[in-house]
């Protein structure tokens, strides 16, 4: 028997019926059609399915949909309002995207980190994305991109990323 839950996804209020055992990743990708969130393992090993729940990163493949009742979710599709944000631009500047399958999860983690800390060290960047596997880039350009995004946010008169949410 399904249950009705209400939550916000990328700024939009949603009201849907979910099964008690239904996973958030399937709701996001299937019912909401937001396929930017990726399935890479389904059991919490790769980070491809990372989304923000009330500003905190969560693996949507390990989260039950009913748990997000009343909460606020941001997926890759909601990370920038219209155009690209600094992180997305920096990923493109630095060649941090190859196949792009890990990219949504990486960008979500980068956003979380930069929300918390405007000028993270390289070590902090690595610590934050070490749960997100990338098989293509060897991470170097991803780390460069996150550094570039942090710098751009410091040096230009950009509104805090958290406000974009």
């Amino acid at each position, binding site marked *: 028997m399904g249950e009705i839950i209400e939550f916000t996804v990328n700024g939009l209020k949603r009201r849907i019926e979910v099964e008690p055992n239904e996973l958030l990743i399937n709701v996001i*990708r*299937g019912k909401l059609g*937001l*396929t*930017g*969130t*990726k*399935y*890479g*393992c*389904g*059991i919490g*090993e*790769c980070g*491809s399915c990372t989304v923000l729940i009330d500003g905190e990163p969560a693996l949507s493949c390990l989260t039950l949909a009913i748990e997000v009742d009343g909460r606020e979710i941001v*997926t*890759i*599709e909601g*990370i*920038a309002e219209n155009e*690209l944000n600094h992180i*997305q631009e920096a*990923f*493109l*500047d*630095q*060649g*941090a*995207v*190859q*196949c*792009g*399958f*890990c*990219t*949504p999860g990486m*960008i979500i983690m980068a956003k979380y980190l930069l929300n918390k800390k405007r000028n993270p060290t*390289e070590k902090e*960047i*690595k*610590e934050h*994305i*070490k*749960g*997100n*596997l*990338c*098989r*293509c*880039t*060897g*991470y*170097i*350009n*991803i*780390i*460069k991109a996150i*550094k570039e995004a942090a710098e751009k946010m410091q040096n230009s008169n950009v509104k805090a990323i958290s406000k974009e949410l």
Partner: protein
Amino acid sequence: MAKKVFSVIGKRTWRKDGVAKVTGKIKFTHDISLPNMLYGRVLKSPYPHARVRSIDVSEAEKIGAICLTFKETPKVKYNERLVSVPEATYKDRTVLTDKPLYVGEPVAAVAAETEEKAQRALELIKVEYETLEPLMDPEEAMKPGKPLLHESVVVADRVVKVENNVACKLEISEGNIEKGFGEADVVVEREYKTNRRYHLQLETKTVICKPEIDGGVTVWCTTQSIHNTRILLHQIFGIPLSKINVKKAALGGSFGSSIQTNTIVPICVALALKARRPVKLVYSREEDMHDHCCYQVILRLKLGAKRNGLLTAGEMHVIVDIGGHQIQAYPLLGCMAGWWVSLYKIPNLKYKGIAVYTNKVPSCAMRGFGNPQVTWAVETLMDELAEKISMDPLEFKLKNYVGLGDIFWGQGPTVKSVITSCGVEEILRKGAEMVGWNKRGEPREKRGRVRRGIGMARGFHTSGAGGPLAGQTVDYSGATVKVNEDGTIDYLTALMDCGQGDYDTHAKIIAEELGVPLRNINVVLTDTRSTVYDVCTHASRATYVGGAAALKAAREVKGKLLEYASRVLDVNPNALKIKPDEETGQGVIYIEGVPGKSLTIGELASLARHKNWGTFAATVSLRQVKCPPHFTGYFVEVEVDTETGVVKPLRIVAGADIGTVINPGLAEGQMHGGFAMGLSMALHEDTPYNPESGDLTNKGFITDYKVPTAADMVDVEDFKVFFVDTHEPTGPFGAKGIGEGATNPVAAAVVNAIYNAIGVRFYELPITPEKIVKALREKEGK
């Protein structure tokens, strides 16, 4: 020669699919859904070697699932990989089987309204298995009297008997090895064993099949070749090619795991044809890890050299543990020989390669097609030899390497060509200087718990699989370039981009040739219907072959543009040039030194429509008659903790000769990614088997399949990549490949660095901390 100034080649630009990728909007096969679609699941053998006695699907059918067993699927024998000519293609499998040969081999399949229901149906299928003796070790499997996994295979419609589980073999010899070894002052012989790695491409294998009303099918799948997928489906199901359409989607990495048509593709097609509804089949990670892996080899290598540093003879014996089926082990044997003889000049040599069936997951190409394995052995043995003749390994290698003017084996013994560009010496000299090679010290000088070492290895890979003679490999590409009525360009290719950025490379080549702004090139998401044949994205051929096809089509279009423009401008076409113009956002056709007499491509294309001249377009098919190697060299500094055995990379200097660099950012990314993959080949990755159950000990979980995370990589400023200045005369704008050369020598460099740190050599990968601690204890115990 004056250096050519390019307008877009060599410039750092955003990749064309980049915005779609960073916004999550791009569609991978995983992301495609169709109306009225069913979900498929596959029933897989829990035994490594068994016979299906009976199979009962009635309970599953009762809950409404569509079920499929081997009884109903076509019995055509095939090989999933269609890159070689029929005489070199060994066919040993069918869509589903009644004699599973590895844990995970599909024996039945279902489709239902939801994935959950499909899974429930799967659990209701009753299978009675008769278990057979599993053969988990290739050397055991080859012994006479062992049960045969396959009685016979089909090669070019001939039935060939299999003896002693030997899938195929190849022997090559040149010169006289007895004489050669006789002339050597020093001979070293070692046995190497590689790990059984898994690609871990981030998108698991996926397929969607939609049956069409005309009896045909439309297919989306994770693949490196849409055309070969179509041809294979035609071979299996007998559907005319014109009624099969394989459509592109973005591919979430691959690294060779989808050169062949994925095993689940024909299964999904069979399900969809039976259900008469679209079916989507997505492999879970556990299933994916039970689907494919990299070739594991036992390699015996013997090399002889004189004190003056010249190699005199070599012998290599390779046993490849291919698993339950051939995914083209035969060309692999040829390629491994080719990689070996193309590293160093060996005047007298003998090679023997044997591929053996075992009851394990079938193995296939993984970034290098046997090259990382061969290069690991050769580059570490060369280090040992150098030490024995008291020569710097770098000098020893420079004395013997295969370079400019030498013959290169690009795809085994039947695809060879002469090397016409080579930056090996510059890579090694410059890299040595950057890393401080001469200050690395000897292992015996290193003290303390944590010891540092620097290692070096060089390597290469082919760019494409074409040669002057046809050979046993199919290698050609195609392209369509058409000018739209506003001067923008549509580019159509069948070649797949697995993420490395091939579409950007091609777009830049076309923009450069046509003289139009890069943004005017639109790379169309094509299918088999809208494109001419391309064999496959493998053998690092996308730039060198695919790019050359794009260039040829662009050149033809340019000829047509200039011809018509010459009439409009009333000059000889040879007087005309085209360049990108920021103001109009167009390619402008102009006469040098004559201002005012010009028109944009958009104006010309629009005029051509109004005057009914037709469309400026060209479709070409192109084979390169060369296979130029791209060269790489890695210098790696590591730190070894002698108490825990943990190895940490500290500093990387990576040099490459890839000819003209078309996309610097993405090319550097290839080197970074290639390093990460080679590093974990040396230190982490393996899929061992439980000898009792015959299943993977990690059960298909990434948790127990270690790959590098961001935390395992060196700091950004400690990873230096440089490209030497070379020009490949046969490449598009002088370019060659990079993808596989970027990883081939890495494991060897890491292993040599470990030796430089602790003075111990390892002959079995991965070199785990346990192995290091054990070896150090043994060494000190003496």
